[in-house]
């Protein structure tokens, strides 16, 4: 697995995206899947940046793996911040009218809908979130 460790802050999202895009481009990943994975990075690394170490700061690691047989990409986000299971919350009401719309939870919901799988575990003091997408 290729990995990158960096400070969890939103200014670093473009660095993570560039790192993953480089791997995806080497695999001739279709543009649509790449954009969906980029959105997932924005949501997930963004969440870690905002909440994992709040109000302090800390590091996060982003790993990349590719299963050639299944043509499936895995991106793994881990941090040593506050234990938080993003899959634990209920899905937002996507039928609510504009005036009652709450944007909270929409990002993770979007990731669930566009990735093939999303898995969270807390191990060795770390939040580990894995997304998988067949390309």
């Amino acid at each position, binding site marked *: 697995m290729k990995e990158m460790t960096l400070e969890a802050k939103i200014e670093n999202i473009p660095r993570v995206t560039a790192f993953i895009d480089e791997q995806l481009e080497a695999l001739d990943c279709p543009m649509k899947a790449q954009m969906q994975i*980029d959105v997932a990075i924005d949501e997930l690394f963004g969440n870690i940046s905002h909440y994992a170490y709040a109000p302090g700061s800390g590091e996060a690691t982003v790993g990349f793996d590719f299963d050639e047989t299944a043509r499936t990409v895995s991106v793994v986000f881990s941090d040593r911040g506050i234990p938080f299971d993003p899959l634990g919350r209920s899905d937002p009401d996507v039928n609510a009218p504009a005036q009652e719309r709450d944007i909270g939870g929409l990002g993770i919901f979007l990731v669930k809908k566009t990735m093939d799988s999303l898995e969270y575990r807390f191990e060795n003091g770390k939040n580990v979130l894995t997304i998988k997408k067949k390309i």
Partner: protein
Amino acid sequence: MNISKKQNGTSLEIAVEGRLDTTTAPELEEELSKSMPGAQSLILDFANLAYISSAGLRVLLAAHKAMAPKGGMKVIHVNEIVQEVFDVTGFVDILDIE
């Protein structure tokens, strides 16, 4: 992300190019908060928008609400990836997409 705007009388058209995400959404939000008060209607041209994340959706929702009592907001030239985000999140029922 690049933002360009055209004003025709009280009609404002803003073209957003690139990626509308956590890092760039605040720029669009700032532009809109400056430009919207003087506009009766708003068109967002997404012809060259690669993708949108929930941070971008938040800005769109706020703009939609701000424009609703006036001439409204319309989103045009949406690509497949952005359309899918609107579909999945139910924004397709909120926004006026052309």
